[in-house]
């Protein structure tokens, strides 16, 4: 299915897609975007790799990353109970608005959600593509 042209183009495009997804996640509290949006970009990057190079490129440890993302998200929320008084309270110093290190817990929550959604979409695409390949 994949030709040399498609493989070369994917090799060139994929790093920029990953960079763009990580940028969207990290700058989620400054520019439009956030954990969900950047995670979907990372997941679609995984879909591109699966379609071009085959699903044998799938890493079986990817589900661990999804669990780690969800656990970090919950951990930040539970830490908010102890330090701020209620679930998901913003207990770190806020910083000056506009800087990269501002917004308290929001960048960390965005990172955790991005990890979880990116790995989750990669797993989702992998399962569906595996089913399609088995059906042929």
């Amino acid at each position, binding site marked *: 299915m994949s030709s040399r042209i498609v493989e070369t183009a994917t090799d060139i495009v994929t790093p920029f897609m990953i960079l763009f997804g990580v940028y969207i996640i990290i700058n*989620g*509290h*400054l*520019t*439009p*975007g*956030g*954990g*969900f949006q950047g995670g979907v970009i990372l997941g679609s990057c995984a879909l591109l790799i699966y379609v071009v190079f085959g699903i044998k490129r799938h890493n079986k440890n990817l589900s661990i990353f*999804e669990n780690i993302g*969800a656990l970090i*998200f*919950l951990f930040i*929320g539970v830490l908010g109970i102890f330090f701020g008084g209620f*679930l*998901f309270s*913003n207990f770190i110093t*806020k*910083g*000056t*608005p*506009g800087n990269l290190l*501002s*917004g*308290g*817990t*929001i960048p960390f*929550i*965005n990172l955790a*959600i991005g990890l*979880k*959604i990116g790995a*989750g979409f990669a*797993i*989702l695409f992998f*399962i*569906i593509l*595996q*089913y399609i390949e088995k059906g042929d």
Partner: protein
Amino acid sequence: MKAMIGFIIVVIFGILILFNLKLEFGGESGIAGEMYIEKGVSETGAVNLVSAILANYRAYDTLGETIIFFIAILGVFTVLKGDKK
């Protein structure tokens, strides 16, 4: 034939909705919206107000969204990988 009937139904209900439900886009933002706009930046420190609402004021809602996404993966996994022939 079925597609034709569906198209006619969609057109009829579209006309009904267009002329009977006078939808207003925008308008006054209410108490919560004004509070977000006034205090959002100073309380959360995030410039992006949407991200501030999603990850700080309504983080509980985001938790529910991630759980829904997890259940979606679980459903796909169960349906498509359940029978190993």
